[in-house]
């Protein structure tokens, strides 16, 4: 069941939550809506679910317009950020709820409900806790009950709002791998909202990066990470060093230093913003030919798989570089060393106007 979001706009009073958003979720895929808070991702998810209505635009499930469909006829599974488990019902009753509230003619028999609920509890590895109340469960367990409850009604699409948001770091990591495995097993078209780029890149088949009510880029995790289309995405997906400079003779000038550009397709005299990820910078004791800039070492943090070196460039900007432990030992860096920083790869965004 594919989902298509077509030109959806949503306004809350003065605040525009979504501006003409279009997005396609291919059938059977797991797609992440990634963005900072206030970017409109949860609103978009709630509109797909039918919990909010769009001011204009349409949501199509498998090519069929759902705009006029009642919420309960849409057959979506929704997992709420804070789980929204029914607090006065046991785990079993929570999962059975969607089956028990059906009109009599569609309602499965008692035994069938039992079997289906136990099968789902098996799937989420909670069969032994069927008679507990939500208040007697840990966060991760509650999350899995919420998931089983959503799956019980055999939804056509599964929507998850910050599914791991309220969990601590370790449980989060386990649970998101588990969700990925579960999705590989049941292959239901799924959309989840997250503000955590690591989570989105690790779990999703495709990622839609949202900012200020728009989808800025949509693609596979590799695509959005390695070929970000806007400075915002580059900034949002991991640490990055940012330099302001200008273009001249196919080289980017920052301060008095020039850097060789990957493709010299820019006009002269344009202002440019250069983005370089910390692990794509190298440190040398002597200047190199490919372009570099002088800096001095401000702080070294060697604890961890990579060594993080904080430097201050010649013109006073802080620069963060990540080098391997081997490289660090080879260079024998100390604080206040004068060094040269060489970019291995960078992204240049040129402003629209010419000076």
């Amino acid at each position, binding site marked *: 069941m594919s989902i298509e979001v077509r030109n959806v706009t949503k306004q809350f009073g003065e605040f525009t939550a979504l501006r003409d958003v279009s997005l396609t979720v291919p059938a059977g895929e797991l797609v992440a809506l990634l963005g900072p808070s206030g970017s409109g991702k949860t609103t978009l998810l709630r509109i797909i679910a039918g919990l909010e209505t769009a001011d204009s635009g349409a949501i199509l499930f498998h090519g069929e317009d759902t705009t006029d469909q009642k919420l309960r006829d849409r057959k979506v599974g929704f997992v*709420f950020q804070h789980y929204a488990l029914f607090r006065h019902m046991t785990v079993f009753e929570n999962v059975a709820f969607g089956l028990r509230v059906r009109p009599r003619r569609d309602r499965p028999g008692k035994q069938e409900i039992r079997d289906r609920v136990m099968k789902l509890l098996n799937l989420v590895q909670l069969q032994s806790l069927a008679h507990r109340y939500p208040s007697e469960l840990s966060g991760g367990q509650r999350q899995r009950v919420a998931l089983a409850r959503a799956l019980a009604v055999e939804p056509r699409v599964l929507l998850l709002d910050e599914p791991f948001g309220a969990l*601590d770091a370790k449980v989060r990591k386990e649970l998101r791998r588990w969700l990925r495995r579960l999705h590989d097993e049941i292959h239901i078209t799924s959309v989840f909202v997250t503000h955590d780029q690591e989570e989105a890149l690790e779990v999703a088949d495709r990622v839609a990066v949202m900012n200020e009510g728009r989808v800025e880029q949509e693609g596979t995790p590799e695509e959005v990470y390695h070929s970000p289309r806007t400075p915002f995405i580059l900034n949002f997906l991991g640490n990055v060093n940012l330099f302001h400079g200008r273009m001249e003779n196919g080289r980017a000038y920052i301060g008095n230093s020039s850097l060789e550009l990957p493709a010299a397709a820019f006009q002269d005299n344009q202002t440019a913003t250069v983005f370089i990820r910390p692990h794509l910078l190298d440190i040398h004791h002597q200047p190199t030919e490919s372009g570099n800039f002088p800096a001095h070492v401000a702080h070294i943090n060697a604890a961890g798989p990579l060594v993080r070196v904080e430097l201050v460039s010649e013109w006073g900007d802080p620069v963060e570089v990540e080098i391997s432990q081997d490289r660090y030992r080879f260079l024998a860096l100390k604080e206040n060393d004068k060094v040269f920083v060489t970019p291995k790869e960078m992204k240049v965004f040129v402003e629209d106007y010419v000076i």
Partner: protein
Amino acid sequence: MESIHLNVRSHRKRPHSSTTEPKTVQWLLIGAAMAYLTLFLMIPLGTVFYQALEKGVGVYLAAITDPDALSAIRLTLLTAMIAVPANLVFGIAASWAIAKFDFKGKNLLITLIDLPFSVSPVISGLIFVLLFGLQGWFGPWLQEHDLEVIFAVPGIVLATVFVTFPFVARELIPLMQEQGSEEEEAAIVLGASGWKTFFWVTLPNMKWGLLYGVILCNARAMGEFGAVSVVSGHIRGSTNTMPLHVEILYNEYNFAAAFAMASLLAMLALVTLVLKKIIEWKTARDLSLLDDAETAVEENG
């Protein structure tokens, strides 16, 4: 883990000495409070029962089985039986609207719900006299159609409903606001109809608050004096409620009978307090179970 947990508990019960008052101050404060309570609550309450039974159990029983007394009890029960369910429905509807929806005039509605609390009950009664009395707005029309409101049972019920309508709503609004509407949304997404969502999710979640509100509402409905006194007309055996009957007997210097009736109302108050305590204890226990579970989760996590 367990020992840490226990430590936290005992620590909570016995605060650090630097943050507590010296023993003498503690005893002084407790003593003052107890003396005050004894003087203004215990002695009057005791007096009610003492006076009621002073002339023996026979007189007591005769006083409360007197036809006029029985009629007053019946009228009080009838009034409560109408006012409480009416305000139960109104309270649920109003708090539902206020907690789960945004609409124009919401603040006005919240203020209006509090109106009976801020208006003197006598004024509340007068409002109904002005509306339905012979010289009132609807008086002539009512008389034409041979309908009695003032100095009759409908007036008493109306006044009681008016005076007691904040109780249920006041209990439910903060409770429902705190619970939000996520569970209802979850139920609807899972395919539940509006009614099923209400009966399976909303109602069970507010049951203790609701019961609490109903008990307070009932106590007030049975005990209301001022507003009812204005609209009742004090017709013995017909429009006298229990509090009004107490007043009449007292004014006739029939102290034993007056206090016998009063003792029934006092007992109602005591039962109400006990029920209230039980509900508070129940909700607190539910909450602490939740706390315990969360602490356990944090410790194990």
